[in-house]
């Protein structure tokens, strides 16, 4: 089976073939983004600003790993939507604590 092809096996499961060059390209991209993060780590930035920039770069890296290394890009669309939507919604639900956390920063804790 040549690289970059997909076939369906006897169980109805889609089997993919991947090109090595694609994986090496993603690996190089991830190393490049890491180098940018290390450079930013030595810039004297406001912690909140740095958090958002580093978090943004980490999300890009996570997306590359999920899409290419974990093969999510090559799964059927309904699997991508079901799994990723559930994960993103659950992670976003955790931010409900931030409203209370912000109140503590501005008002302080009762002694």
């Amino acid at each position, binding site marked *: 089976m040549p690289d970059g092809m997909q076939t369906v096996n006897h169980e109805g499961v*889609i089997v993919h073939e*991947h090109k090595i060059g694609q994986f090496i390209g993603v690996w190089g991209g991830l190393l490049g983004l890491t180098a940018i993060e290390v450079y930013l*780590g030595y810039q004297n930035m406001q912690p909140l600003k740095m958090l958002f920039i580093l978090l943004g770069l980490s999300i890009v890296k996570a997306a590359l790993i999920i899409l290419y290394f974990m093969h999510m890009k090559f799964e059927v669309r309904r699997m991508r939507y079901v799994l990723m939507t559930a994960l993103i919604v659950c992670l976003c639900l955790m931010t409900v604590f931030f409203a209370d956390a912000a109140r503590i920063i501005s008002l302080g804790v009762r002694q």
Partner: protein
Amino acid sequence: MADVAMHHPAAQAFEPPLFRTNSKKLGMWLFIMSDSLTFGALLFAYSYGRISNPAWPMPFGAQSILRASIMTFFLLSSSLTMVLAVRSATHGRMPGAVRWLLATMALGTGFVVLHAVEWTGLIHEGLTPFKNPWAAGVPQFGGTFFTLTGMHMLHVSMGVIYLGVVALRKKWIPILLVLWLLAWLLTPASSPFHYGAHVLLLGAIVASVILYFKPKQYDAVDVEVSGLYWHFVDLVWMFIFPLVYLMSTRIT
């Protein structure tokens, strides 16, 4: 699940699985989603602590950042060797897949060893889960740092054991027991890794139960499923490295 449905005598017509993928792979994805929430909660807690404390300690000097960068390189490279193992297994080249799996395990072990060196250095400087020598007003630094990075180190160790089971099967058990003895006897009793090494013994026991009570030849799907777990531990480090190390870099 899909296999059972396929071979059930009542099945009259062929029906492909809903997600057109193997049920083992789907099971691993569900585990990864639940584990993501565990790490998500820990990372949210750490990040909030970091942002809300202006006096947050900055203990990571150039040497720590260099070490953590090498650790990141190890994990990213191990993900590359892992996809190459999956590719070899998909092509039916199991000896090649085993070689790539061993390379992945070597890089993962290198990551754990470097992380242990990092932890030991910080402990010698006086960091404990309840206090740190850099900022007395932020006692939660040690607790959050050790919980987050320790949890990840445990996942990487379990990943190496898991890949060893897939690659070497029963041959892996004596190797794992030798590694356990070395890790246990060569670390001083004051080190957390002296007792932490027992994770390897626990792994050897669990692996023995699986390999002796349910022996099988692992195929391409098993390699791919183990790969999903391995990429997940790599993915989590992509958040821990910047949020824990780079957000607390000591700039001189």
